[in-house]
């Protein structure tokens, strides 16, 4: 029987399917609901120092089956209020990962420290929100900032630190390596792609903030490429994010180098039962392909095994160092 358990930088997960930050993470009851629906772990909304309303609506634009544009504007109740939501999810047994965002290294470190105090299993640094000025990806596009923020956080917390990087850069590998130098335990890639939509009748952007981030099936090949590029260049685990909707999507990310994945937009497209469905389908697919454990095929596509008896050597630049 195939096994879905994975170890992510010391955090033991019952399966590799994490609820992505920003989805269902405002209330503890929702986090618990996602856990009970089969998520291997649940990541909170990104929490800041104080309550933030987020941008006015419209904050989301549907692109049908391709996914969504969103510019929520990092709404969150603040680190004073939020721990009770985490406690509610933990009381129901959930493995919770706390996501934080800030304006500088000190703020990230302080928030991570307070988040760690809630007993979360790991911290995820949101260094990649593409639509909040002075926060998230404004810092996260600069490798020096990424390294400094990660180092500051690392010094304050003992739980695993996952750094979520942005795809809105020419060189995602440089961001991942900067995070690793700063002491990151893992990288998650990717956050949403900076994007916009315009209503031609009204001659204005459809999101109140104008620019937003694109999520969903449209960005899966981009997320996959980032994981593919990052995996051979770092020695810490990678969490794959972007457009995952099927077990085959999960396995593509795993074979590109992901040890776990985050699922977000699919919750809106398919409902929260996506987690149990992905688990079942993944077990079936692994059975079909003769894969016993997820860990056995992490990065497997970089090896390029023999096909039809013809051995294919991996290109040396793609090989893990």
């Amino acid at each position: 029987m195939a096994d879905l358990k994975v170890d992510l930088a010391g955090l033991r997960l019952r399966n590799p399917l994490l609820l992505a930050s920003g989805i269902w993470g405002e209330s503890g009851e929702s986090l618990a609901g996602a856990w009970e629906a089969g998520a291997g772990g649940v990541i909170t909304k990104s929490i800041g120092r104080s309550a933030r309303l987020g941008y006015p609506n419209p904050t989301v634009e549907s692109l049908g089956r391709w996914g969504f544009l969103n510019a929520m504007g990092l709404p969150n109740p603040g680190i004073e209020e939020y721990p009770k939501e985490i406690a509610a999810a933990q009381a129901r047994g959930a493995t919770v990962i706390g996501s934080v965002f800030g304006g500088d290294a000190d703020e990230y470190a302080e928030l991570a420290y307070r988040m760690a105090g809630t007993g979360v299993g790991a911290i995820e640094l949101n260094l990649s929100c593409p639509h909040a000025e002075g926060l998230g990806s404004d810092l996260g596009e600069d490798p020096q900032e990424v390294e400094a923020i990660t180092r500051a956080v690392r010094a304050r917390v003992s739980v695993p630190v996952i750094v979520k990087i942005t795809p809105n850069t020419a060189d995602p590998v440089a961001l991942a390596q900067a995070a690793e130098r700063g002491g990151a335990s893992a990288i998650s890639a990717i956050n949403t792609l900076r994007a916009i939509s315009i209503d031609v009748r009204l001659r204005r952007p459809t999101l109140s903030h104008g620019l937003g981030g694109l999520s969903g099936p449209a960005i899966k090949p981009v997320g996959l490429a980032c994981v593919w590029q990052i995996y051979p260049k770092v020695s810490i685990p990678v969490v794959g994010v972007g457009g995952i909707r099927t077990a085959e999507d999960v396995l593509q990310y795993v074979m590109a180098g992901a040890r776990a994945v985050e699922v977000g937009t699919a919750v809106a497209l398919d409902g929260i039962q996506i987690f149990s469905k992905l688990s079942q389908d993944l077990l079936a697919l692994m059975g079909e392909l003769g894969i016993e454990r997820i860990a056995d095929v992490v990065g497997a596509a970089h090896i390029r095994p023999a096909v039809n008896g013809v051995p294919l050597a991996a290109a040396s630049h793609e090989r893990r160092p």
Partner: protein
Amino acid sequence: MREVVAVSERVQETPSTVTLRFAYPDEARPGQFVMLWIPGDDEIPMSLSYVGRSKGVTVKVMGSTSRHIQSLAPGAQIGVRGPYGNAFDLAPRRVLVVAGGSGAAVLAPAAEAAARVGSEVTAALGATTGSELLFEARFRQMGARVELATDDGSIGARGFVTGVSDSLLASTIFDAVWTCGPEVMMDKVIRSARRAGVPAYGSVERVMKCALGMCDACALGPYHVCVDGPVFPGDALTPLPEFGRFKREPSGRVVPH
């Protein structure tokens, strides 16, 4: 996906409520809501008060956005997406509708649809004062028995509409109670209906952002009002510690209702 449509008609229903009508082709059922975008202002969830091809929303003045919506004249462009959420089950034969204030906006189209398929509708309508009673004529026109209550006693019974609905529940047999209004009122109506052995359904309002079951802004206990509601069985609502007591502001912070 969103469509930009023009307001076709504006009706001042009461001193504080206005109906905007607009053509929007997607089929909707009574109880469902749309996300109504006022370009340059906000996008808010509005239950449909008219569900035919010419749809409508009936807006009470609450804050700056609702004031802005009320100021829109025919021809104004608005964005509409939806309809979203679930609807009232129109099967019951004898329905008691209990509306507080603008709650009548979502109950009127449901009662109309029920009456059209042969249900007997009784409507208990409440408002602060007589001039604020919403859709009284519309309920009478569909053949409903109408009972009124106002806080100041200017029309109908003096006091809350729950006094009227309680005596109706005591004197008449119903198959279902539908309610919409302030949550404290709905909570009372649902409990009275339960004592009378009648299943109750309430339409609930929360802050909404995505309306797609993703962002968690409208989390209510284990539910998301946008996809699991907005119409809930009373038995699902009354056990929730926050029902009638707390709501979440747009930051997600829990505040008194």
